[in-house]
């Protein structure tokens, strides 16, 4: 197990290094004088040079890269050119919106997908199984933002039960914050569920056809008992992988849903800074997101090792 963990850790660090290089080159390599763009038309060359100098933008790219990485390692994500706010402050201020949204979306998706997918697997070939397959097929084709728009049309505009958008902060009213999150979470969760149902269904189908399940039945367990006691642990392996892979998808969905419901989350901050050419802010925020995704994948791999002893020895 120790070697397995070590190997995964090395991959984790290597991945972060390569990703940081890719992001840096992508953002800086696009060229253009960043300081000139930030200051806009009419800026004097002196002002441009001064800004470039303050933020080290006049240094060679390699120096800038190592400065950035070095600073990140010591916990300094840089500052906004315009407002001089710390990127870490900008990010943490948004997390109270983005994290509850993404996490509840994922949980809701799983809560729907696991029972429905299992049911669909146990009813393959019957009309109800076919209908479920069709519904999830359609669900996969629905863009998450359209789901959001439709839900806000129905529950916000028509019925008036919930706000169609906007944000009440947790500090103002916890109930208000929850109310502003209901429709976004519902949109995200339903779309996640549509994708996940297919995976759950195939994972359960796979397990149902295994010999060990027949053995479990032969020693006297009922079908449900066998599925829960023997099948679940086996089916959990592909599921854990899928959840890991879906994290990137989940973040993409969160980005869009925050826009649909005008939530002041991480992605709206990103969009605004992308438009303003705040390279440091964008670069560091993107890097944080990527580190998060890679870390989740590392956890998934480690969890995999715990759940399945075979994985530890074979890799």
């Amino acid at each position: 197990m120790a070697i397995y963990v070590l190997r995964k850790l090395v991959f984790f660090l290597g991945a972060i290094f390569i990703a940081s290089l890719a992001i840096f080159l992508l953002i800086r390599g696009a060229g253009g004088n960043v300081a000139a763009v930030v200051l806009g038309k009419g800026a004097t060359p002196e002002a441009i040079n001064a800004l470039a100098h303050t933020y080290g933008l006049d240094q060679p790219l390699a120096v800038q890269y190592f400065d950035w990485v070095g600073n990140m390692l010591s916990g300094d994500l840089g500052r906004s050119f315009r407002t001089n706010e710390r990127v870490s402050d900008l990010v943490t201020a948004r997390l109270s919106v983005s994290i509850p949204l993404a996490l509840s979306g994922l949980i809701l998706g799983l809560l729907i997908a696991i029972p429905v997918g299992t049911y669909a697997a146990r009813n393959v070939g019957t009309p109800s199984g076919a209908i479920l397959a069709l519904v999830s097929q359609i669900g996969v084709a629905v863009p998450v933002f359209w789901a959001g728009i439709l839900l806000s049309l129905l529950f916000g505009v028509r019925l008036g039960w919930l706000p169609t958008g906007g944000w009440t902060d947790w500090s103002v009213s916890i109930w208000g914050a929850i109310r502003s999150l209901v429709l976004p979470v519902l949109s995200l969760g339903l779309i996640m569920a549509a994708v996940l149902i297919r995976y759950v269904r195939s994972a359960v189908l796979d397990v149902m056809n295994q010999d060990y399940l027949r053995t479990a039945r032969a020693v006297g367990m009922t079908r449900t008992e066998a599925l829960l006691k023997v099948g679940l642990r086996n089916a959990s392996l592909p599921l854990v992988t899928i959840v890991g892979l879906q994290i990137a998808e989940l973040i993409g969905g969160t980005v869009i849903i925050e826009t649909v419901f005008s939530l002041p989350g991480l992605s709206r901050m990103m969009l605004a800074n992308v438009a303003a050419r705040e390279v440091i802010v964008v670069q560091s925020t993107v890097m944080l997101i990527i580190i998060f995704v890679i870390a989740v994948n590392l956890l998934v791999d480690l969890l995999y090792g715990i759940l399945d002893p075979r994985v530890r020895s074979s890799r």
Partner: protein
Amino acid sequence: MTMNQPSPMSAPAGVPISPPQRKPRRKLPRNASLLIGLVLTALFLAIALISFFYLPSNPNIPVIRNRLLPAGTPGHWLGTDVLGRDIIAQLMVGARTSILVGAGGATFSLILGTIAGLAAAASGKITDEAISRGSDILLAIPGMVTALVLAATMGSGALTTILALTAFFTPSFTRVIRSAAMGVLNEDFITAAKLYGRGKIFVLARHVLPNIAGVMIVQFTLYFAAGILTEAGLSYLGVGVHRPSISWGLMLNEAQQQVGVSSPLAIWPGFAIVLMVLGLNLLGDGLRDVLDPKLARRAS
């Protein structure tokens, strides 16, 4: 569903015949998805083609006296938007964008992914390791984030969106192609070809490629669909296509500004996206059953 007997068409020339199937399951209309998918896809392709020759009216020129006409108005059967632009005309041009961007992204990533995947499968352990780990890392970068960064640095537009999709899809293509090619490379006829003195490139082009063509077609279709969804999302966010080009995502963005004023505006482009993506997904699933029985069984 996909566990049924393969249809008689399941082994066209060049595709390895699958091992015998397990117990036959009850018959659902198994090629229904192929048929429905084909019809829907053909329908949208036709609409996009027609839009080059005929549009009910100019989808970009505002006609204020026609603003917000309801659906069913003669001449504007799905109504008009807040600037009086015909919805049908916009939807038709939107089909063009979706197909161009979706197919463009899928094509480029298919080409790059095939090259990388074949290289990984056929070369030594180090190259394989490098390509495989490399695509693992790229897979961890959320596509939406890549697209945002690209839009920020290159400016938004159809071409940037295609590039973003390519960056986003190539790693997954590489993985799929690599594993499919590995499977073929283990076959006896490859050993035979090598013994016959055939070079690596020849073997790949003459023997491996035709045998993974089925996988490639299926994956192309599915990523075509994913590309349309992503393009719609980016255009909705305002970092994809913008006017005078029209995208269904862009239409939804504009419609949402007026949600409450005229909700039907937010319905039609969404339907178009769902139908087109559903069509391509069904087509992909149907083709998988026909062209790639091995994968079909795994996917079920």
